[in-house]
């Protein structure tokens, strides 16, 4: 009997932590969702579930029937295009660098790794200031390539580091066997290295893709034509006026948040092990 009482208090204590954690986590997201499915003027009624839940806001967004949403589909496309471009470019740059440093033992590889780590530790908002000026020197301002290049710069150091950690763990005998068989470096890369690295490649590719999709600051600085904006920047522009249509903003935000959340949960297995393994080591 005594033992059982202790079990009850343990469970109660756990719930006492769990319930606040649940509320804390869910409230901002639920508030957004509630607005997205509420009629205008109904959302602030204080109900936990709207009286007449509606998909009308999503319809308005999809049909671009509001001043703020005139370019919704183009902006969604921009976000997608930029995210995919950043993911692919970063993957290419990081994989080649990690392969050269870790497997080909290129002279100066350690220095390259340190340069990448140094870049990783520059606070993003600090680098944004000279990056803006640099893009104007290069004549890339207002081109979506400026955002792609900036995001590749920010994403690749961490990807190189994670890939290098993972490559270092591959058995060295594989490379030796391939060399003895007369494989060229390119064959070793394509036929041995890449297939073994797939889980890490998925992790860093997704990381770079999500980083670019989620980015606000660099898009806000580097792009300015309505047509070129990413969805993130377009959402921020809703703030320009006090009488913003909040229910539409929340519906758009919900659409914008859905793909990264879905990708994250789909690749959770890779993401968590791939991205936390390195951190724990230190």
């Amino acid at each position, binding site marked *: 009997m005594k033992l059982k009482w202790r079990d009850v208090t343990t469970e109660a204590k756990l719930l006492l932590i769990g319930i606040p954690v649940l509320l804390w986590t*869910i409230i901002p997201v639920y508030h957004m969702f509630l607005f997205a499915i509420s009629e205008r003027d109904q959302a602030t009624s204080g109900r936990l579930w709207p009286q007449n839940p509606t998909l009308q806001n999503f319809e308005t967004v999809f049909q671009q029937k509001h001043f703020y949403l005139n370019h919704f589909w183009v902006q969604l496309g921009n976000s997608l295009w930029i995210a995919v471009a950043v993911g692919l470019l970063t993957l290419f740059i990081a994989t080649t660098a990690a392969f050269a440093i870790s497997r080909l033992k290129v002279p100066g590889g350690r220095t390259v790794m340190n*340069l*990448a780590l140094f870049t990783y530790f520059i606070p*993003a908002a600090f680098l944004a200031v000279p990056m803006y000026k640099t893009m104007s020197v290069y004549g890339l301002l207002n081109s979506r390539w400026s955002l792609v290049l900036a995001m590749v710069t920010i994403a690749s150091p961490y990807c190189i580091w994670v890939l290098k950690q993972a490559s270092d763990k591959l058995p060295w005998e594989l490379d030796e066997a391939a060399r003895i068989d007369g494989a060229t470096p390119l064959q070793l890369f394509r036929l041995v290295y890449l297939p073994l690295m797939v889980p890490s490649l998925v992790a860093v590719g997704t990381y770079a893709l999500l980083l670019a999709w*989620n980015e606000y600051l660099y898009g806000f600085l580097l792009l300015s034509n309505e047509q070129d904006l990413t969805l993130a920047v377009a959402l921020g522009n809703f*703030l320009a006026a006090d009488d913003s249509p909040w229910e539409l903003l*929340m519906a758009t935000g919900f659409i914008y948040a859905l793909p990264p959340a879905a990708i994250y949960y789909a690749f959770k297995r890779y993401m968590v092990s791939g991205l936390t393994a390195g*951190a724990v080591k*230190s």
Partner: protein
Amino acid sequence: MSTATLATPRPRKPLSTWGFWGRLFVVPYLLVFLVLVLFPVGYGLWLARSPASYAKLFEDPIFFRTAINTIVFLVVAINIKMMIALYLSGFFLHTRWWIKALAVLFILPWAVPSIPTILSVRFMLNPEWGVINSTIFRLTGLDGPNWLNDPTLALSFSMLMHIWKSLPFWTLILLAGRMAIPAEQYEAASVDGASNWQKFKYITWPSMRGLYLTSTLLSTIWTLGDFNSVYLLTGGGPADLTHVLATLGIRYLRLDQIELAMAAIVVSLPLVLPIVYFMMKRLSK
């Protein structure tokens, strides 16, 4: 290079295929580094060369306020966040079905982009229509405070927003650290009748200390670069009283005062560079 090798120059060894490909494969990243890191950083430092910029910066009352805000933000938000993360990492070790389900939901703030959720909170805090003040009015008939119009409250909410967003990540990191501790150590301690606090003090903390420190320093750098939590919630207002360095630099940039923006960043380097150096030593092992 020693003098002996200098004295007897050997014919240059032809580059092997492997050496050639190794060099070729680092070229893409080196290009990115030279064109998009080295040049911008060098150019930025060059823009910040004039002492007049610093004089102007120190005369700006907003800069002084920003420096204090930044320090408060770093010290308060990071420590609270890391302590909660350390505590929750222990909570998520429990094997219950509902804790597993909660862990999945708990990642949500980290998995979704910050813009929509920050704007969602911003609207919750709206003094007239926001859900918080509507509820206060319904319950008490009184008008709630104008949350974001008070610099202290506004900065506090920015810190809460920052904690909300990054807590899941650090909890996961520390959870991974806790899971690396062998269970036998806890079992042995239980047999000896150790309390939970003693287990934490003598087993958990000694093996987590390094990770906790590394995480705190890394979080310091990332928090310094956190633009969204402040800008999207308060916009630096009211009256530019809630800026942190990340938003102030961008404010100067938007006002076409890039020299001031770079000077503000340079002023923070004595704090940033030691952390960068320490982290590089840790991670490049």
